[in-house]
């Protein structure tokens, strides 16, 4: 492939200082990027530079450092706007992460638009962060949470989606990519179907952003959320994209500094645009770090990343399928580079502990997707999730360590 020539994974690995670490004396095989990704040096430098050269609080200061800090912070917002192709920076709200972003929408949009009997439509693929906020708001408003089922391969049943979408549905909230089993959900189709019935859609892009280019206007998403730490940025930062026309109608979520127009004890009026939803001192340096992370992946290019990851995914799938008594869970036609599996008679926690000794980092557990685990009738799985810095050696190390587990429990 043409792109592959310009994509050198060994060079990319050098951008990530963590790969110099030894784990129990072994090479680090990091297959847990689905939980959180490692950080390239450019991100770490952006963070440190922001603190050492231009640090001050943003927005309210006329002095030099405050001005520079504000420029960098707002510059990161513009970077993210451009990356997602949002129309205006007013539509880019910085949050603590995906979880806060969804809670903000559930709370602000939800409280304003949900009545008893209304329905919130989710799917069986959702992360707890895209379930629990809706349950909390449903409880408060008398609305009901419904979930679109999946088939055994882990694909959303689109005919079920169509029939569950009704005049009672007030919002659809689905993941773009399943964190537990990798399914890529046809969100464009979902948005079109929902819009045909006048229903707004929130897309949880936490697992999509590291793997693909997302264009919120091409998707026509009403809300699109993601979390910084999974996309090679710092912890403590996330993004809510929301259409301006919705933001204008939505009441504030949290109250505090920076989101007000005028405060008196009798009456307070609120700012407009993203400011209305960014109460208090924002995660300034984390936003700047996230901007650097987005620049970094754009520098590599998503065609390159996707080609590399899909090649790894198919190699890993072939290798793991060939093992005795190992079952891959989730075999959707469109998948991101995530392989979830279980082993006959051996518990994921034991697998995780044993292969960790070989330096292999995978996630074992329910991946914050218990309804999906219930669907497959397993308490937990082993999940290997890949990112742009993984290579074939990582797959080989994983496979070797699984064989060791089998040996151990023979």
């Amino acid at each position, binding site marked *: 492939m043409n792109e592959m020539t310009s994509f050198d994974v060994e060079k990319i690995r050098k951008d990530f200082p963590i790969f110099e670490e030894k784990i129990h004396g072994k090479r680090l095989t990091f297959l847990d990027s689905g939980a959180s990704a490692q950080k390239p040096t450019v991100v770490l430098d952006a963070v440190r530079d922001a603190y050492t050269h231009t640090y001050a609080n943003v927005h309210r200061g006329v002095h030099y450092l405050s001005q520079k800090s504000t*420029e960098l912070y707002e510059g990161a917002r513009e970077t993210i706007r451009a990356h997602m192709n949002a129309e205006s920076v007013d539509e880019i709200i910085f949050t603590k992460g995906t979880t806060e972003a969804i809670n903000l929408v559930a709370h602000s949009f939800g409280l304003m638009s949900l009545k008893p009997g209304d329905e919130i439509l989710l799917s069986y693929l959702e992360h707890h962060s895209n379930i629990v906020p809706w349950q909390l708001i449903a409880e408060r408003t008398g609305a009901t949470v419904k979930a679109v089922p999946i088939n055994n391969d882990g694909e959303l049943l689109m005919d079920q989606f169509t029939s569950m979408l009704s005049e009672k549905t007030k919002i659809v909230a689905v993941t773009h990519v399943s964190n537990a089993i990798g399914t890529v959900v046809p969100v464009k189709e979902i948005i079109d179907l929902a819009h045909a019935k006048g229903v707004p859609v929130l897309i949880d892009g936490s697992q999509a952003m590291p793997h693909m280019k997302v264009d919120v206007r091409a998707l026509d998403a009403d809300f699109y959320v993601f979390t910084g730490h999974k996309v090679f940025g710092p912890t403590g930062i996330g993004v809510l994209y929301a259409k301006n026309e919705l933001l204008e109608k939505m009441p504030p979520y949290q109250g505090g500094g920076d989101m007000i*127009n005028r405060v008196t004890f009798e009456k307070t009026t609120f700012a407009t645009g993203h400011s209305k939803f960014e109460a208090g001192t924002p995660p300034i340096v984390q936003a700047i770090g996230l901007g650097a992370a987005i620049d970094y992946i754009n520098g590599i290019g998503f065609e390159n990343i996707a080609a590399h990851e899909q090649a790894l995914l198919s190699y890993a799938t072939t290798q793991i399928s060939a093992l005795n008594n190992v079952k891959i869970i989730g075999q959707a036609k469109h998948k991101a580079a995530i392989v979830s599996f279980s082993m006959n008679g051996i518990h994921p926690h034991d697998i995780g502990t044993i292969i960790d000794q070989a330096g292999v980092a995978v996630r074992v557990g329910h991946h914050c997707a218990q309804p999906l685990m219930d669907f497959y009738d397993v308490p937990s799985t082993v999940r290997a999730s890949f990112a742009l810095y993984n290579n074939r050696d990582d797959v080989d190390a994983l496979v070797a360590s699984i064989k060791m587990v089998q040996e151990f429990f023979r």
Partner: protein
Amino acid sequence: MLDDLKELYQEVILDHSKHPRNFGKITPCSHQGHGYNPLCGDTINVYLELDEHECVSNITFDGKGCAISTASASMMTDVIKGKKMNDANTLFENFRKLATGECEEIDAGEDTERLMVLAGVKQFPMRVKCATLPWHAMHTALIGETEISTE
């Protein structure tokens, strides 16, 4: 270091800020606009009278502001007085572009020079809002809204 400052606080600006022209209220008046800057708590009210030809026959302002916003209001009222409503709105647009750095130069005829004086503010991004606040208030008065707040 004083060069940029001297550019911002030119004599004419200091003069307008210390001795603002057209300061006061017109009551009753046909148009009124209120500007509020939540960053500093400053407020500017602009009062306007249009005659039967949609010409600004009188314009005044009052409120609390810094030297920049006061001078800007003072110079603005001088410039706008006697202008047609449409021309006033065009001047607003031109000045906004100049102050935010969107344009380097504008052609506003005889008013160009006075507007350029205020444009020194673009070297001070945090102060741009101070300069544009009265203009926004004037604009909202003309288009019939009553309150704006810049941010």
